[in-house]
């Protein structure tokens, strides 16, 4: 276990390094958004002032020096947006409560719902219930977030007034307000994942049902319910759980860009959307690093959990 963690940590650092290098090259070198010094200096600056800023911020230095400096800034919290001049880390920190609320809530909703839906579809395989659920899953998978979100806001929010039109209320301020504002975003973000996960779980269950050990469980005299829960579902959940870890990481790291934008939730995803539209490269770079960190950390956690679920897997 300790050896696994050490090795995993080394891999994580190496991965983050590679990701940072690639994104830096992409955002700062390949995708130059004019002269950053000119942006920082503003419209009224003289060329001498621009040059001064360029020297001060190190834009005249070689690329690798710029890379090291930028990364150091991002990690010690002294990176500033060239566009807005705000501290990037503060911006991200401000967005985290909304993003965490959205992603953790939705994560549990989509995991639990897809377990229910997938199991129901599998035990009713080929019958009416299964066909209806299959159709709904397909709709869920193919429904774009911006469309479903817009429809939900229009009807449930604007026409019927049962949900707010958007925005985020911290739970410290009002727990009910927090819930009320998050119901629609949770639903919107979950629906795609429920569609995918329930399809995967359905087919995994149908594979597992034909396993010899399930026949053994029946031959032991277990009830159909116990066979399903203890022997079929327990084994079928393993692939779903590992998928969940990675998807959740991506959403935590600001991946729910569309959902956050549609519902005007000022989270990390919304910040990502803003910085993309303004080509705010430093902010974007920081968000990508956060996403990468979340994926790598949750990926490792998932692996630990995976080994816990399936004793045949050794953490090496």
């Amino acid at each position: 276990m300790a050896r696994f963690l050490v090795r995993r940590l080394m891999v994580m650092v190496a991965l983050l390094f590679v990701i940072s290098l690639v994104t830096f090259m992409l955002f700062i070198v390949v995708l130059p958004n004019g002269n950053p010094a000119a942006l920082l200096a503003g419209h009224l600056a003289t060329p001498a002032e621009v040059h001064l800023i360029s020297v001060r911020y190190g834009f005249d230095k070689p690329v690798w020096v710029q890379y090291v400096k930028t990364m150091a800034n991002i990690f010690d919290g002294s990176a500033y947006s060239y566009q807005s001049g705000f501290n990037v880390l503060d911006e991200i920190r401000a967005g985290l409560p909304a993003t965490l609320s959205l992603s953790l809530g939705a994560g549990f909703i989509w995991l639990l719902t897809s377990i229910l839906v997938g199991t129901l579809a599998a035990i009713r395989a080929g019958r009416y219930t299964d066909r209806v659920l299959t159709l709904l899953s397909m709709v869920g998978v193919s429904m774009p977030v911006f469309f479903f979100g817009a429809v939900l806001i229009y009807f449930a929010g604007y026409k019927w007034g049962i949900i707010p039109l958007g925005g985020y209320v911290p739970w410290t301020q009002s727990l009910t307000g927090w819930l009320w504002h998050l119901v629609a975003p949770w639903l919107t973000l979950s629906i795609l994942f429920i569609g995918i996960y329930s399809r995967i779980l359905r087919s995994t269950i149908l594979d597992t049902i034909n396993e010899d050990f399930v026949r053994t469980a029946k031959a032991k005299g277990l009830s159909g319910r116990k066979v399903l829960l203890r022997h079929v579902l327990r084994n079928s959940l393993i692939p779903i759980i590992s998928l969940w870890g990675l998807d959740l990481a991506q959403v935590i790291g600001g991946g729910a860009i569309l959902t956050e934008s549609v519902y005007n939730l000022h989270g990390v995803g919304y910040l990502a959307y803003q910085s993309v539209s303004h080509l705010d490269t430093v902010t974007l770079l920081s968000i990508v690093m956060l996403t990468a960190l979340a994926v790598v950390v949750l990926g490792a956690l998932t692996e630990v959990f995976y080994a816990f679920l399936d004793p045949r897997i050794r953490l090496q």
Partner: protein
Amino acid sequence: MSATAPLLEVDDMRVSFATEDGLVRAVDGVSFSVAAGEVVAIVGESGSGKSVTAMTLMGLTRGPNARIAGRAMFDGTELLSASERELQQIRGASMAMVFQDPMSSLNPVYRIGHQIVEQIRTHDQAISKAQAMDRAIELMERVGIPRASERLRSYPHEFSGGMRQRVMIAMALSCSPKLLIADEPSTALDVTIQAQILEELRTLREQTGAGIILVTHDLAVVADIADRVVVMYSGRVVEQGTLDELFYDPLHPYTWGLLGSITRVDRDRSQRLPAIPGLPPSLLRTPEGCHFRPRCSHAFGRCTEDPALRAAISDRPEHLDRCWLELEQKRRLRVVGDQIGLASAEPVIS
């Protein structure tokens, strides 16, 4: 129930499965019985319906596509029409099964001990977890698993195939079944382990007086352990009788073929091992008349009519076969060289 009534009496059991290609008649009118303390072997090639017979008794072939008919009286319960709830109480308790492939028959994610305890506690709600654990250790020791109290905490993948099969047997024995169904219990194992597993079955029969149904294609195993033998071919019983009747006075050409294809140390090695020519018929389209006719070198005109399963020898009412040949013809035709075998139409290639 009278004292002489057999433990299990199967009467005209039929199992067919609706598939996309048509109705597969996997078991086509099978009758046999098992007494307490008796080992009945069901032999036949792959696809003869022997495993389906065994699994149907356990209620494991039930499903939307399965058609099951006939009767199987076991210990006062008719198994084929029993409700799922009734079956659950019998399965794993008074009737248990050991499967062919020990490598995949245990759930990989639970500890061995847990899987044995699960069965014990399913049928005995009063027993505590600790008591059930002790019972599991006792069972594991009984089937020859060393350091049972430690091994209890192992996962199936930490066991060899032979050890896993012992676990399966321990599990099957956990509720002291009256009938044990063993579906090719030693086929997936190597020969030394095979012998040990058979020894376990023999001990079980002697210690508990349980009846055993042994499904196998291995006649050496049959000769080793069985009291009576049922030979199945293409979903039907083609011959049945005591071990001695089957081995020393076999009456059906298919049985001759099976006996002729056993590897023997006393046979001339320059000859190729005799095999029954051809393949078993598809269960979708069984041949008219005797199912073995297309592969039988002794087939004649009458074989297009369906032969009944009957006793050919009047003082042996329990020795049944399904063949049109006269007894004297059979005794003459079955001798190939100086052994029993199915004469092949073409000369044996050496």
